[in-house]
C-alpha cells in the first residue's frame, strides 16, 4: 500500500440544464424545473464545490444559443473549473464553449458516432479539455452498455471497453453516469465504478444516485476520483459544506 496521501477527492456540483432552467429528473427523465442555473452554480461555488458541471439535456447549442450565454454568465463569477456538455458535435462547438468560459467540454453522442472527434479535440485543445461522458446501463452482472440521449438510445457498445478506447483516443477525463441509479438517491453503482476507475489512467467522475454522505464516501472508496452530486444539492437535502464535513468525519480529507 502506498504511504502517500491521496489528493482530496473532488466534489462536483452537477447541474442539468434545459435552458434557461436548471432541471432535475429521475433516470434522466421526468424533469422538474429547479430555477436559474447560474444562481445555483454561484451558491455551490461559494459553499466550496471543487468543480461545476453543466449538462444541457436538450442539446440547445443549435437553438437560441442560450447555453453559451449561460456559460458566459456563470464563468464571470465562479473561479473553479467548469465543465459543459450536451449537444457538442464539432470542434467549433468545443471552441464556442471554451471561449464562453468553459474549462472542459463533455461529449457523448458525437464521440460514439465519430470516435476520431476525441483525438481531434485533444490535439486542438489538449486532452485536459476533453471529457468523455458515458451513460452506462446495466445489462447483466458486471456488464454495462453505453447509452446516449439521456439514457434513451442504445449504442451496442460495452461501456467499459468503450471508455478504454475513448481514453486511448484522447479523452482526458471520464464522466460516468449510471442510468439505473440516476436521480434515485438510492446510492451509486459501485460495481460500475470499480470496473471503470482502475481500468483507465485518467480521472473518473462518478455520477448518478447519491442520496447521502455515505453514498458519496462509498463511491470514493470504490476509487472514483470525483463524485458529481445533483439532486442532494438542488433539493437542499445537503449543502456542499455539509457533504464535505460528512466526508471529513468519515476520514476522507477534502478541500476546505
Amino acid at each position, binding site marked *: 500500500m502506498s504511504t502517500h496521501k491521496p489528493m482530496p477527492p473532488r466534489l462536483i456540483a452537477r447541474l442539468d440544464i434545459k435552458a434557461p432552467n436548471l432541471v432535475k429528473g429521475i433516470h434522466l427523465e421526468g424533469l422538474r424545473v429547479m430555477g436559474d442555473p447560474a444562481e445555483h452554480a454561484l451558491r455551490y461555488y461559494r459553499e466550496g464545490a471543487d468543480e461545476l458541471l453543466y449538462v444541457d439535456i436538450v442539446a440547445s447549442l443549435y437553438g437560441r444559443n442560450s447555453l453559451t450565454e449561460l456559460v458566459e454568465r456563470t464563468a464571470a463569477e465562479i473561479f473553479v473549473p467548469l465543465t459543459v456538455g450536451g449537444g457538442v458535435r464539432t470542434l467549433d462547438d468545443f471552441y464556442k464553449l*471554451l471561449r464562453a*468560459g468553459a474549462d472542459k467540454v463533455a461529449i457523448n453522442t458525437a464521440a460514439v458516432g465519430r470516435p476520431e472527434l476525441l483525438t481531434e479535440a485533444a490535439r486542438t485543445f*489538449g486532452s485536459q479539455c476533453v471529457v468523455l461522458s458515458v451513460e452506462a446501463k446495466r445489462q447483466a452482472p458486471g456488464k454495462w452498455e453505453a447509452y446516449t440521449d439521456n439514457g434513451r438510445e442504445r449504442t451496442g457498445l460495452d461501456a467499459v471497453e468503450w471508455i478504454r478506447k475513448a481514453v486511448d483516443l484522447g479523452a482526458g477525463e471520464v464522466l460516468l453516469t449510471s442510468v439505473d441509479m440516476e436521480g434515485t438517491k438510492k446510492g451509486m453503482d459501485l460495481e460500475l465504478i470499480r470496473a471503470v476507475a482502475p481500468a483507465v489512467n485518467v480521472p473518473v467522475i462518478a455520477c448518478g444516485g447519491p442520496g447521502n454522505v455515505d453514498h458519496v464516501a462509498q463511491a470514493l472508496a470504490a476509487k472514483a476520483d470525483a463524485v458529481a452530486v445533483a439532486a442532494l444539492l438542488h433539493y437542499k437535502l445537503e449543502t456542499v459544506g455539509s457533504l464535505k464535513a460528512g466526508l471529513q468525519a468519515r476520514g476522507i480529507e477534502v478541500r476546505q
Partner: protein
Amino acid sequence: MSPKVTVIDYGIGNLHSVQKALRHEGAEVTLSSDAAVVRSAERLLLPGVGAFGDGMRELKARGLVQPILDAVGQGTPFLGICLGMQLLLSESDEFGRHEGLGLIPGRVVLLTPEAGFKVPHIGWNRLVPPPGRDWTGSVLEGVAPGTATYFVHSYSAVPEREEHRLADVDYGGFRISAAVQKGNVSGCQFHPEKSGPVGLGILKRFLSRSR
C-alpha cells in the same frame, strides 16, 4: 487606480479565464503579442496550456523571447501559470528536448508518481513550503500551508536550486514543484484562476507588486 497587467497572448491555450479572474481582482488587463508592449508592461503574466515545445515555438515566432527577458531584467513583476511556469526553466524533455526561457535554472520532466496515482495530475492538491521556506513577501503570502489549489498537468518543473522552489506538492511520492520564485519572477504550476478564493488572492498579491 487599477493595477495594470499585460497577459502575453502567444496562441497557446485559453486566455479567457485568467483575464476574467484578473479583472475580478480589479486589474486593467491588456492582451498582447507585441514586443514593445511586453517590454514596457507594468506587470507580465504568461499563461498557457499545452506542450512545452509548442509554447517556445510560438513565443519565438512572435519575437517575444528577448522582450520577456528584457522586461524581467528591468524588474517587471512576472508570473507564469502552468505551461507559463514551465517555460521559465532552462529546458524540457516533453516530446524531445526543448530549450526554455532559462530564467530559472532547471528542467521540466514527466511526472512519475508511484502506481495508483494517475497522470495527468488533475485536481486539488495541497501546497507546502519546502523545508525552511517562508512565504512572506511572495505571491503565496497569507496562504496557509496545506491549502489545496487546482492542478492539471503531466510534466513538472524541477528547479536546480532549492532556493527557487517556493511551494511543493506531494503526488504519489513525486515532489512536484508547485510554485517557483526568483526575484521578480514567479510561477505557479497550478491554476490560481481556477483555485477559488485562494487563487484569486494569489493573483491579487501579484497585482500589488511593482517594479
